[in-house]
């Protein structure tokens, strides 16, 4: 009996496999696609090489004064010289460690929260202890720390403070408003609706104006808020309305049976809402909550308009420094980079959370 050797299979033609197939399919499939591909490549050539030329090849990195910037490109010396100003604002130089350790403590508390936050009470305790510690650390006045008034706070650290306070404080208020809007009681529901729709209908800047100009008039003489606190109140009240709408969306996704089951177990209203409904609603709402937090982080830059010196305002201000005139571009590119990194990583984190909760549901 003849034995036939199996011939090795011939490989597919080169235009049906590997990178050539990919290019043919994804870049050159139709005449329109060919044109688009070339347009896209032309665009990249138009944008990227000049930018690299400006930002790296022609740029100056070392030096201490404007005179050291001799190239045609970017003057990163400016950023380097002003970096502490951009990060800490007018905070006293000797006390930078206080801001640094407040940031470090955030991670410590985060770890404690993760490993020791067993019950709801300890979680809340740890969670609310951190802002108090951080406040005393940054503001001072106790334990031999020198008081640093809030008008000295600024730069990136102020941006982070405003954003985190806004995000954290708006959450409980938002939850209450969302419960109010979903409530059966007509008066409570209408109050919540009016509040939420009013705040969402006006721009943040008008609320900041209101907080900085009108708010002091609402309280008896002698009670005075500093500018930062006013801005924080405004931002919290603003963000709460958005958080409320997002959580309401989550509440609507909860089947009625969950409410009825909680009722039939004899849980009180708050037990039902906090132990059964809210945890499920939050799961649905988390991606949008992250989105709202990113929006708030970007919106903190608006405090520039009411005269607080956040990161953008510091860069805006140093751009008009007489010995460093004409470096606006570098400053704006730097702020862009910082904001972009924060917002982009937050949005990726939101996506990760969304995916994680999605698989849980399956």
């Amino acid at each position: 009996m003849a034995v036939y050797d199996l011939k090795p299979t011939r490989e597919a033609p080169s235009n049906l496999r590997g990178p050539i197939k990919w290019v043919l399919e994804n870049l050159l499939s139709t005449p329109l696609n060919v044109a688009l591909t070339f347009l896209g490549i032309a665009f990249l050539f138009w944008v990227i090489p000049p930018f690299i030329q400006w930002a790296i090849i022609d740029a100056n990195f070392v030096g201490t004064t404007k005179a050291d910037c001799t190239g045609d490109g970017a003057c990163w010396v400016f950023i380097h010289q002003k970096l502490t100003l951009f990060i800490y604002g007018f905070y006293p130089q000797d006390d930078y460690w206080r801001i640094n350790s407040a940031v470090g403590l955030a991670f410590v508390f985060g770890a404690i929260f993760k490993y020791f936050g067993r019950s709801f009470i300890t979680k809340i305790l740890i969670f609310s202890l951190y802002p108090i510690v951080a406040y005393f650390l940054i503001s001072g006045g106790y334990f031999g720390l020198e008081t640093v008034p809030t008008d000295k706070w600024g730069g990136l650290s102020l941006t982070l403070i405003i954003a985190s306070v806004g995000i954290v404080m708006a959450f409980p208020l938002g939850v209450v408003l969302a419960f109010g809007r979903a409530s059966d009681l007509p008066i409570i529901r209408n109050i919540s609706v009016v509040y939420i729709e009013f705040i969402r209908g006006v721009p943040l800047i008008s609320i900041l104006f209101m907080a900085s100009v009108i708010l002091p008039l609402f309280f008896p003489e002698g009670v005075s808020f500093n500018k930062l606190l006013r801005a924080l109140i405004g931002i919290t009240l603003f963000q709460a309305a958005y958080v409320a709408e997002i959580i309401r969306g989550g509440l609507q996704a909860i089947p009625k049976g969950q409410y009825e089951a909680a009722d039939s177990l004899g849980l009180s209203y708050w037990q039902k809402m906090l132990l059964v409904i809210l945890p499920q609603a939050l799961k649905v709402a988390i991606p949008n909550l992250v989105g709202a937090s990113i929006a708030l982080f970007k919106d903190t830059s608006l405090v520039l308009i009411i005269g607080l010196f956040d990161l953008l305002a510091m860069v805006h201000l140093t751009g008009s420094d007489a010995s460093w005139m004409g470096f606006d571009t570098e400053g704006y590119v730097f702020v862009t980079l910082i904001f972009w990194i924060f917002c982009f990583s937050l949005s990726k984190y939101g996506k990760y959370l969304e995916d994680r909760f999605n698989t849980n549901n399956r």
Partner: protein
Amino acid sequence: MNLLNNQKFRGIFFQLLTVIGLVAFLWYITTNMFHNIEQRGITTGFDFFGQIAGFGISESPIPYSDQTSTYFDAFKVGIINTLIVSGVGIFFASILGVIIGVARLSKNYIVSKLSLGYIEFFRNIPILLQILFWYNVVLAALPKPRQSIQLASDMFLNNRGLFVPKPIMEAGFTFVIIAFVLAIFVSIFLVKWANKRFEETGKESFLLPWIVLIIVGLPLGVYFLSGSPLHFDYPALKGFNFRGGMSYSPEFLALTFALSIYTATYIAEAIRSGIEAIPKGQKEAAASLGLSSYQSLKLVILPQAIRIAIPPIINQYLNLTKNSSLATAIGYPELVTVFAGTCLNQTGQAIEIILVTMLVYLTISLTISFVLNIINKKMEIKGR
């Protein structure tokens, strides 16, 4: 029976408690407010609207003079400028957003990744930073009027703004406008007729060339018949600046650029997610019914995708309008700059002015959500 365990009673009780708390709080802050106002000698009321404002406004679409115009005129200028900048911003944001959103779904790798890059880049930068960047970096770097960049034969761009020819309509031009409106109505009628015929007989009519012919041809014919009643006032360099024509200030340009580019990212995302939300089965079902890919897009995919995409897009229009208030950072004279800025500083009547400003935005918002609700009602899937 314990009253507190009675659900009805509890409902009334807690609502009463809330109302009492709210009223007490409002009473507390208003008494404080009136006391403080009196102490500081701030005038109250809306009488200031009738007084002469006495400050100039750099751009005004309606007649305004710093000598005779009142605060109410300044208020009107502010509102109109807000509406103009929002309208123009919405127009360009929509065009850019649709292009980017469609490009995002393109099968072409480079195009799709470029639009992803565009979306991720501009979406993650604060809008205020973008406005300041366009204003302080890009537009400030433009040449002086004498070295203007010539965009087209009579369009000039320099650090004073964009200068374009100004159309001047003569009496006969009304007929051209009437013809244009008429052409649109005729086209709508034609489309309706074609749809009806399609449903009754299944015959398709290829209307596009006819519609183009009617919408372009009818006004054009009337234009020439009525003796070309339109001419242009061209901008010309006189001294240190351009005179004549129409000009758009750098503030206006920076604001519309930033708002359109920023909002377009959200519109693009809305369009992408709208189209991607359509289950694959819909496309397959359309294909198995024998529809061409154009038919399946037009008759099956888009009607469903638009239904999903429109509410977020209209929300973005609303956001754009609210974000136009950031003009105050670069001094474009819209509502917040003129009214909540200059007028407030001159009169010192913060409460009235900020309240009125908020009410204007609230009115715009409520109008837009009202329109949105109507559209949603119309778009609702009618079945069962």
